């Protein structure tokens, strides 16, 4: 029988094992698995590059994202303006860097805040049960039966557009998923013996909730935070693209893309929308890679 590549791999492992070279490795299993996941490492790298260059935007570009320069309108990319300039002569590269600050803030911030709300309510109501639980569950059901974008647009039309409003609206539309996750975890953990043992020792409900149960549910919660971050970044981009998200005066990734609604820009000035679209896609991709890596590394049932 011809040796397949799998067979060769097996031979190699067997030889190493017999030479006693393979030792059971120590250290955090989850972290090790995450770092051995190539896509997750790529994700972390892209994420850090985009995040850091947004934060340190002034060190990377000397252009002011807001400065209108009518003498250099609609310039295609050059050494001076890496991604060219827009219709009022603003440097697109600088706008992408500074826009990243707001977009990432909105995405990550809303995800973290809605996670905190969702987890806090979920843990508590899941642990206590009874009418508190029923009410919280029903309320989350109501929010979750709206398609997300429609709920967001509905709220935007009522409260108006502003950065702060947008974050609040995202939190309102996003806490439900996290709440359900935390609650489900709590319900199954509540039944476990060590929790019941703690209870019989008279440890307070509140303490049990947050000190003993929460760390156990941390893996899936972190995975969910990454997924929500990706979702909010996409939502911000979509809304601002429509002109209904963050006010146009603030540069965000979505607002920069807004110009592409004009077919002439779309066809003739690719630099005004293509790079920023690519940056959004890359960033969301990196977040998703991290999320997937986290899921695989925190899930004990997977091995490979």
């Amino acid at each position, binding site marked *: 029988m011809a040796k397949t590549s799998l067979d060769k791999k097996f031979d190699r492992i067997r030889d190493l094992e017999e030479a006693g070279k393979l030792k059971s490795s120590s250290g955090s299993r989850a972290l090790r698995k995450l770092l051995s996941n190539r896509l997750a490492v790529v994700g972390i790298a892209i994420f850090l590059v985009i995040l850091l260059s947004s934060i340190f935007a002034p060190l990377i570009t000397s252009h002011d994202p807001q400065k209108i320069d009518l003498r250099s309108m609609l310039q295609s990319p050059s050494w001076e303006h890496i991604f060219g300039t827009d219709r009022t002569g603003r440097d697109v590269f600088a706008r992408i860097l500074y826009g990243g600050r707001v977009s990432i803030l909105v995405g990550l911030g809303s995800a973290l805040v809605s996670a905190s709300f969702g987890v806090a309510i979920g843990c508590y109501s899941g642990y206590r049960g009874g009418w508190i639980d029923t009410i919280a569950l029903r309320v989350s059901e109501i929010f979750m039966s709206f398609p997300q974008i429609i709920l967001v647009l509905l709220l935007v039309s009522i409260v108006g557009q502003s950065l702060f409003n947008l974050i609040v609206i995202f939190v309102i539309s996003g806490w439900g998923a996290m709440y359900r996750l935390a609650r489900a975890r709590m319900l199954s953990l509540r039944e476990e013996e060590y929790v019941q043992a703690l209870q019989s020792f008279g440890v307070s409900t509140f303490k049990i909730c947050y000190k003993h149960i929460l760390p156990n549910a941390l893996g899936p919660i972190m995975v969910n935070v990454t997924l929500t971050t990706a979702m909010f970044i996409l939502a911000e*981009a979509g809304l601002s693209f429509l002109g209904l998200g963050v006010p146009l005066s603030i540069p965000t990734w979505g607002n920069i893309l807004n110009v592409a609604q004009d077919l002439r820009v779309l066809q003739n000035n690719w630099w005004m929308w293509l790079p920023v679209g690519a940056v959004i896609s890359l960033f969301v991709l990196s977040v998703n890679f991290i999320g997937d890596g986290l899921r695989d590394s925190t899930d004990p049932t997977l091995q490979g």
Partner: protein
Amino acid sequence: MLTFIVRRLLITLPMMLVISFLVYLGLELTPGDAVSHMIDPEVANEVTPEQLAQLRAAYGLDKSFIERYGIWLVNIVQGNFGHSLSGGVSISAIVLDRLPATLELSVFALLFSTLIGCVLGTISALRRGSATDSTLTVVGMLGVSIPEFFFGLVAILIFALHLNWLPVGGRLMPGDESFIDHLPNIILPGIVLSLMMTAGVMRYSRSAMLDSLSREFIRTARSKGLPEWRINLVHGFRVALTPVVVLIGFRLPTLIGGSVIIEEVFQWPGVGSEFIEAVRGSDYPLVMSIALMSVFAVLMASLIVDVLTALIDPRVRLG
């Protein structure tokens, strides 16, 4: 089966009631009262103050909040959503006019993404660890990461503006009559809209399939000496189907939401682009009505998914 559907409906109804109440509350709190959007503004201009008062009485605006809600609700159940603030057209007429376009697009995207997503996910799972699998995994990841509208823009640039193969947007060209006539128009928005859903279905059906293939009954099937296709499809895929159908149901709101932006990008004359117009113009009655209808659509869809799940899973069906 029938009792199952009825029981399921009984759970859905109170939800609808509460949501309609919230929506009505929103309507009351936003500018413009029931009269201004329940009667045609063109007629309203000629109405004298007494007549207006009479009208208000007739529509029950002098009644208590709860009663007004009741009247509004009865109207809605009868299909009367009142009038839009701009133009004063009846909301039901607007939506009915635009609904076919939206349905066409969503059904296209739903079928496309379910079919392609399941096939690719299954292939990926059956070839796990192979180059095909890694490629599909990365492609699927890209699919859920690229904003749909950005993908739409690129598609317009390439296929409509540069290659001139397909129209930039719109649905019905003058002279178009049958579905075949405007097939070129639906291809771009349909595929772009299904992209994210396809990627989602693919990723999910891959993991559902892997899960199903690792179960004991697969080993039993193998120990019976069944052919490989039968083990993988008749046993593996059939069991993976249930969670996939549930996921598609969960993703339907995303599809409905996604169609809002895609319709705008491709100037598809559906309910979604009307909704965006309404939000831009602060046309509250229209915004609220469409939102309410979308919730209704989502709840109906999840009902259908539950029925489907029951149909394909004997454990649910037979209790």
